[in-house]
């Protein structure tokens, strides 16, 4: 295990969030593209989950991820999911689903920052034969189920939470969500079912960055007052500034007996990388249009994140 890896809680959550942005930035510059805006909007949320909010055991899988080991099948008895990076599946531990699997790059950076995966893991990102896939697969580090199709995460989490409650597990189920998912009908089916069955060992934090693949949600498909909608569907729903960690702590501490808790974390898709405003509203995946643009972004973002420009 590389010696520079930090142990849990050695760093502050703020430091981890900064580290996430730095790693995603470095990766994006080197590879001439990446999921930059997701790091901007969600770094505090993922740092908070892994560093504070979730009760996770020590990782059970190698710090340097194994290559792709085949898909689940009766002929593949050695198949494992990426859940082991979130710790063992034991009754007292929480589980985490990353519902928008497109945040995988940010999630992998979080695993590294919290000492759950070696930095070498990110070098394997989107490489043929690697398990560290671009859209997080079930076998990718930190992924517990397949979520690449948006809207299924909360339903799966609700089912798992119902089963864990019946089993007497003390661990909760947490779903990291994205606001684009509220356009999917299944999200509302999931909330109504969780409320109907009183599933309160389930909570979600949603990155409300108001962006989706085609651009700003306001233009692609308006979703209205989602806090009111979640409340009407039976959830306990709280709105916070997605970059304010103390607000996040308070929201997580809210009582939600008999209901799932949904925290709407309003965030900026350019937080910490202001130059990304130039690409608004097409922020889903940033690929540089020219070498000049790549160099400009390298200089500007490095300065804002307090590091030297990346050599590439």
């Amino acid at each position, binding site marked *: 295990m590389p010696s520079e890896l930090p142990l849990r809680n050695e760093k502050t959550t703020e430091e981890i969030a900064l580290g996430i942005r730095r790693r995603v930035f470095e990766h994006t510059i080197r590879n001439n593209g990446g999921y930059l805006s997701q790091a901007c909007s969600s770094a505090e949320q993922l740092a908070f989950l892994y560093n504070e909010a979730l009760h996770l055991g020590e990782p059970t899988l190698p710090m340097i991820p194994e290559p792709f080991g085949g*898909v*689940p*099948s*009766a002929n593949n008895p050695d198949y494992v*999911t990426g859940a082991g990076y979130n710790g063992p599946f034991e009754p007292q531990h929480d589980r985490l689903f990353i519902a928008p699997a497109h945040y995988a790059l940010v999630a992998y950076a979080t695993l590294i920052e919290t000492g759950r995966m070696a930095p070498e893991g990110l070098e394997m990102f989107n490489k043929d034969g690697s398990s560290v896939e671009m859209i997080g697969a*079930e076998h990718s580090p930190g992924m*517990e*189920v*397949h*979520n*690449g*199709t948006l*809207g*299924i995460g909360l*339903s*799966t*989490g*609700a*089912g*798992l*939470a*119902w*089963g*864990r409650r*019946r*089993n007497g597990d003390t661990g909760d189920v947490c779903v990291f969500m994205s606001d684009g998912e509220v356009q999917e*009908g*299944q999200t509302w*089916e*999931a909330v*109504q*079912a969780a409320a*109907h*069955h009183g599933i309160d060992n389930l909570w979600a934090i949603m990155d409300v960055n108001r962006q989706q693949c085609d651009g700003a949600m306001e233009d692609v498909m308006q979703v209205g007052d989602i806090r009111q909608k979640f409340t009407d569907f039976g959830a306990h729903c709280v709105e916070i500034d997605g970059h304010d960690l103390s607000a996040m702590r308070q929201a997580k501490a809210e009582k939600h007996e008999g209901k799932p808790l949904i925290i709407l974390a309003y965030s900026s898709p350019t937080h910490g990388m202001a130059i990304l405003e130039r690409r608004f509203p097409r922020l889903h995946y940033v690929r540089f249009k020219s070498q000049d643009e790549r160099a400009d972004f390298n200089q500007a973002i490095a300065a804002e994140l307090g590091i030297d420009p990346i050599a590439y």
Partner: protein
Amino acid sequence: MVEMVARPYAAAFEAYAAQHPEVLALSADLTSSVEIDGFRDRHPEQFLSMGMAEQNMLSFAGGLGLAGYRPFVHTFGVFLYRRPYDQLMASIAYPRRKVRLMGFLPGITTPGGMTHQAIEDISVMRTIPNMTVLETGDAAEVEGIVEAADSIDGPVYCRVLRGSVPRLFDTPLKVGELRVLSEGTDVLVITAGITTEEAIRARGALDQAGVSVRHLHLNTLKPFDAEAIVAHAAAVKHGVVTLENHLVAGGIGSMTAEALAEAGLGKKLIRLGLQDTYAHGGSRPYLMHYYGLDALALVRGIERLMAIETGIDEGALEAVRVDAVHSAVKAEAL
């Protein structure tokens, strides 16, 4: 004559689930229509009402599977794969969750018309990796489907008959074991589900007309026992006729064609069933006649295959006495 059994699924599911606390019943607002209303009332702690929300129900079932439960998801077959196909793939089939998909009203067994008739379910389900596909053809198989489904190490889709169901067999459904109902030498007839009773009726008349029928009944559609099918096809002179309560594309007819072709067995094949068409609403006998799924359609198919005229008409078929098949019948393991 055959015994008719009322609601065999209801009793079988309750008896099994009551002994297996990790079995759960999920229902999407069709609880009495899928015969688990009594179970709901007597075992509420094992019953989950999921409402009319199949997409959530399937992903939720996947989550229950992850928590160590074996959910039996009950609804009409169509509602298990048309709307929630994505959830079926991502939340159940891919991760090999032990979710038991109990699909009622297979094919044209409902007057509900296109929206309620699962006419392409076998075709869809059998192409899904990790999925097992079972079909019930009589009361004994309905009674056995619960335990059989729960023995599968992974997800399974079952075509389940409801209501008043004839008892044709006196042995339970065994996964992977087809039933050899007769061992004739002229033509091989392959059926499953409700078409088996039709073929038994047709056989009665065909025997009298001097046509020697070899008849196989399938209850395990995936894995498909290609080797056995090919061996039986090789044992008859004229060829094979499949008769299914499903589109001929993608179902038993297609699977048989694939098996024969891959084995290089040049036997003529006639596929009876829905011929690239939707059905409409009506009674089962009307629909089976209208769409050519009944005993008469099978007789005409065999006549076409053998280039003969048997003289069998509807009157001759109605006169055939259908008896239960006793254990003299062979079951062949996969």
